[in-house]
């Protein structure tokens, strides 16, 4: 069979791949978007929320047609130490009006919709196909191999996710090390929409996002999350893989423990688990970035490690969409110059460096190292909840001024003041 040749073959119909496919097809280029799942999104999972601005640039007012769950109006961060917890909550009701700051969503539906936009624009979508390798000719990527099929392209875009085998096979990245990634697990728990709105004190279809740190991961590096969807909540844990390598904890058991916590259990009572999912999450940001450009190949989205975890905020889909956009622009420029060599494609890096993707990852580049500090996951939740417990406890013991209460807790947990000041200073500087 004479192999068909495309201008671009994109491996993976997630947000990065479908964005690139949509923009390239819209510009009139012939694009093949390959997905190994039976439909786009059927292999994908995430915590639960997408920030809107990136997609709004590509598909203005996308919320009028995209399958979304709830616009998030409330952010809560909770520190947990045993049976004590302390939370910070922020609410902005304006976020429930256009241009909607962020949405919770479910990937099976959403990714299928975004890929369908690429198809409508003229991209060819091929599902149920696992790409096994890239095709090389004189050290240059000239297409992909899927089973016995060989498909040719001027340029291949690797959008195959966090555990990207393609970037490894193309020699753009060594194997992932456990420090660089986390494992995320999630349960989608179904509840009636009104029950969710009542329990979370939300008006109408407004949504809430909630992050947790502390004993939900038994004090090891990671955290918990809870997002409200329309008729379900997405509840999960994310734990650094190096910690999972070190400790004999079963993450699915930790999630069951988390569900039973007194501040979670009443929220999900009577719910029905509809799905249990797991995925790797890139954690090291620019420090785990593969070579983004090879001869005839570009890397986008999670495959490039484009995730930003600030502890109180997690971004991934907006960066994936932004990198897909940059890759599409780079392919169009390379096409205009008839140069798909590494040199011709290197414009991708230039475009990316001018985009919000690189700007933000670079701005926060010291955060991954900061978040390796073990004190954030055990000691500081103990300290914060300990101080709060002293503040809110009334008894027949003689009163102590706030500063005295704080100092007593610092002494109790044997925290060095210099260490605490240094951590606070570092956090303030890098976050």
């Amino acid at each position, binding site marked *: 069979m004479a192999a068909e040749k495309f201008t671009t073959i994109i491996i993976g119909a997630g947000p990065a791949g479908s964005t690139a496919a949509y923009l390239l097809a819209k510009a009139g280029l012939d694009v093949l978007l390959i997905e*190994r799942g039976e439909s786009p999104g059927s292999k994908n999972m995430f915590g639960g929320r997408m920030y809107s601005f990136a997609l709004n640039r590509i598909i203005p007012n996308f919320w009028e047609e995209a399958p979304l769950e709830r616009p998030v109006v409330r952010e809560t961060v909770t520190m947990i130490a045993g049976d004590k917890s302390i939370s910070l909550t922020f609410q902005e009701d304006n976020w429930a009006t256009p241009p909607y700051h962020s949405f919770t969503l479910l990937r099976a539906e959403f990714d299928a919709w975004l890929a369908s936009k690429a198809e409508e624009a003229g991209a060819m979508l091929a599902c149920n196909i*696992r790409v096994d390798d890239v095709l090389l000719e004189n050290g240059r990527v000239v297409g992909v191999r899927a089973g016995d099929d060989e498909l040719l392209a001027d340029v291949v875009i690797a959008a195959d996710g966090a*555990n990207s*085998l393609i970037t490894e096979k193309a020699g753009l990245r060594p194997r992932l090390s456990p420090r660089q*990634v986390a494992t995320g697990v999630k349960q989608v728990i179904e509840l009636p929409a009104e029950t969710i709105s009542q329990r979370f004190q939300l008006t109408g279809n407004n949504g809430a996002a909630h992050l947790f740190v502390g004993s939900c991961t038994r004090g090891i590096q990671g955290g918990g999350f809870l997002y409200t969807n329309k008729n379900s909540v997405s509840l999960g844990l994310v734990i650094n893989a190096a910690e999972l390598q070190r*400790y004999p904890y*079963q993450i699915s058991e930790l999630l069951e423990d988390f*569900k039973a916590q007194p501040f979670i259990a009443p929220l999900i009572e009577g719910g029905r688990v509809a*799905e249990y*999912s797991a995925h790797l999450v890139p954690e090291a940001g620019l420090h785990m970035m593969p070579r983004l450009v090879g001869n005839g190949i570009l890397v986008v989205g999670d495959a490039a490690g484009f995730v930003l975890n600030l502890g109180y905020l997690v971004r991934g889909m907006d960066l994936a969409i932004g990198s897909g956009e940059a890759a599409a622009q780079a392919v169009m420029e390379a096409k205009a110059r008839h140069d798909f060599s590494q040199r011709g494609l290197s414009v991708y890096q230039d475009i990316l460096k001018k985009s919000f993707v690189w700007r933000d990852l670079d701005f926060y580049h010291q955060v991954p190292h900061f978040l390796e500090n073990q004190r954030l996951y055990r000691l500081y939740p103990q300290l914060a909840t300990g101080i709060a417990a002293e503040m809110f406890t009334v008894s027949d013991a003689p009163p102590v001024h706030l500063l005295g209460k704080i100092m007593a807790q610092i002494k109790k947990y044997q925290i060095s003041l210099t260490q605490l000041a240094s951590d606070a200073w570092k956090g303030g500087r890098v976050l």
Partner: protein
Amino acid sequence: MKRLSTEQLLSINKFSVDDEAKHIILDRQICGRCESKPCRFACPAGLYSIKDGEISFDPVGCLECGTCRVVCSHPGAITWQYPRGGFGVIYRYG
């Protein structure tokens, strides 16, 4: 809510089981030399277990996350691929 075992959680999911090809293959010799076997605990689906003194992997229920591949520190012990196109887990929510 009632506590669910990992098996119960997996039984809720939709899978298209591939009876012909195993996507993750272990090297018995290399695995035999590994003392800590972090795959036993790290796998979110709990698919690694000790049978007759040897570690074994059950591909049915795999969530395809890649955690086992990342936590394994013995090169060559795990030959890891994604399931063939169309097979494996089918997320209906994600």
